[in-house]
């Protein structure tokens, strides 16, 4: 039982990370119909910004965090202008390649500017963790879970209860119709990229104390978050959260009870099983094309 609880906590913790990054995927996908291959790099860049401000320059944590988030917002805007906007009238394929190019560019620019050594970002709390009964709770993972919960709640409130959120929803559902209704579509998409970059950045800053800060950190998380996105049914916000958590838990238990080296395969086996038996994901998405 101890074992199961411990694994469950770890699974939820790591799952929350996947979920946060998956959220960024989903938002951009809904707005532009394109999978952003550079989403993981957003997390990586934010973590490096944090290292520069909080560790190298020794600025206060909260200020560093705000600056890093501000930096991510700017990056999101630039990303939209440079990578997506020129191709907005094209099919999804050139845009995908453009985001792949951006991912290579961001990773190696960071490398050129900061050098290759992995960095340590100290956790927010002094105490690393504590025991509740036999289960060890890492404070950073608790923070990650809490922040994920808050962001999900915020997202729900934002999209369902604010005018701006509704405009964003309208844009993602039907750009032409939204434009006819006087919604500034280009502005809405810009906002989506900024918000996704910020989300990815928050995820990166939160996992940095756990997974360390390295050039590769983005790529590794992004692939899993990608799988989480599918399990949750593409383009569904709630689904991405559930998908991320499910993936974290499946992976952790799979590694504990079946095989550690094949850990990364479980995500994809589950994914294939989902597609075979429930292609619409957990929360469903219509895949039939209308005549």
């Amino acid at each position, binding site marked *: 039982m101890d074992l199961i609880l411990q*694994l469950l906590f770890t699974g939820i913790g790591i799952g929350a*990370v996947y979920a946060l990054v998956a959220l960024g995927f989903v938002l951009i996908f809904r707005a532009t119909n394109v999978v952003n291959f550079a989403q993981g790099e957003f997390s990586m860049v934010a973590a490096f910004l944090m290292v520069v401000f909080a560790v190298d320059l020794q600025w206060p944590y909260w200020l560093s965090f705000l600056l890093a988030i501000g930096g991510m917002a700017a990056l999101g805007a630039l990303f939209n202008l440079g990578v997506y906007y020129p191709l907005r009238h094209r099919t999804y394929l050139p845009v995908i390649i453009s985001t792949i190019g951006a991912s290579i560019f961001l990773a190696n620019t960071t490398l050129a500017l900061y050098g*290759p050594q*992995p960095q340590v970002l100290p956790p927010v709390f002094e105490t690393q963790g504590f025991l509740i009964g036999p289960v060890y709770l890492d404070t950073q993972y608790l923070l990650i879970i809490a922040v994920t919960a808050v962001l999900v709640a915020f997202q729900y409130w934002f999209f369902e209860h604010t005018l701006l959120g509704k405009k964003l929803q309208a844009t993602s559902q039907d750009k032409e119709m939204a434009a006819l209704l006087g919604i500034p579509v280009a502005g809405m998409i810009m906002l989506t990229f900024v918000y996704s970059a910020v989300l990815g950045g928050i995820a990166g800053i939160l996992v940095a104390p756990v997974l*360390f800060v390295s050039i590769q950190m983005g790529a590794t998380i992004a692939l899993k978050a990608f799988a989480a996105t599918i399990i949750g049914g593409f383009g569904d916000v709630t689904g991405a959260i559930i998908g991320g958590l499910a993936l974290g838990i499946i992976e952790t238990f799979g590694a504990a009870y079946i095989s*550690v080296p094949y*850990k990364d395969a479980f995500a994809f086996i589950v994914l294939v099983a989902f597609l075979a038996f429930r292609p619409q994901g957990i929360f469903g998405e219509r895949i039939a094309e209308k005549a």
Partner: protein
Amino acid sequence: MRTTRRVFLKSAATVAAAGVVAPSIIRPASAQGGTMRIGMVLPVTGPGADAGRFALNGAKIALEAVNKAGGVLGKPMEIVTEDDQTTNPGAVLAFSKLASQPDLVAFLGSIRSTQNHAMAPDILKTGKPVAFGGTDPVLTQLGNPWLFRFRPNDSFSARVIAEYGVSTLAKKKWAIIHSTDAFGTSGAKALTDALGKAGATVALDQGYTNQSQDFTPVVLAIRQSGADVIGSYFTFENDLGIFARQLRQLGVQAPWVGSASIVNVTALKLAGPSLYNTYGVADYAEESSDAARNFGKAYRAVMKLAPDNQSSWTFDAVTVLAKAINAAGKTDPKAIREALLAIRGHEGAEGTYNFDQNGDGLHGYNVVRNDKGNIVFDKRIDFYKG
């Protein structure tokens, strides 16, 4: 749109043309300098970029010393580098690019075993000595006469881990944790054999894939196996760091004897207190010999950083190559090879070099302990029998 497109195409064409022309401009300029050039394949990009930087530093320190002492065959020595991108195809292209320059007399290969495997066919074709740092024992048993190893191979590290754990620490029930890459699997196999011979049991043999984000299941498996000592082969420091922290968090207190990565600079920085009181089987230990101390001093003076095995082997390789070429008296590859094989008792930073017919230069390891973040030399276990 049309004009911007045209401008872009034009500038793209210019860049492409410049790319074709530029190397051919650079090359003759440096080739005419009358220097003795050796090539070096190292990761500048990709996950190994960090290690690549250290490797280059070590080589540069040796280079300076060699040139201060009069160079090689009366000429100053020079190192030409190519990026292997931390991938196998990248290593092959980087090596063949170097090999296509006929004035390079010898090469430094990779610290990663798979990359050396990938380059081996081209190395054989090139027919010039290659000093490398990969520790997979198979590499020097391929029958490739041009491979010279400047680090002790894993059959030695495994024997040292086993001997230290079983004899000195008196622990018999082992958990082996290893990466599933070439380095990790061959190390774990050798350790299992060595433990068998030493009469210890393996309670858990657990592989993991590189760049794992979480080791909770692995740590819990160690806890459940009841092992009283851990032996490990980790490839990347961030994996090692996450594992170390979770091991301590989940309350596993068994002693831990790890392969060299457990004491390298990056691992110490990332894992911090989680690695206190662990043991490392290090090919480089600063306190192990005068040569090691001297290298440490030189390295600290230049880099303001503690040295580790990633720089010590390239330091030794450059030093020994220079020595061998001077001994051979010419740059003929066969003569250099003979001179390398003839080296006996060379005191390097990594230990005493005595090349055997396979091209293995070192035959022992140092055991070190992590004392609150400081690496303390414990003892050297050497298997070389004259």
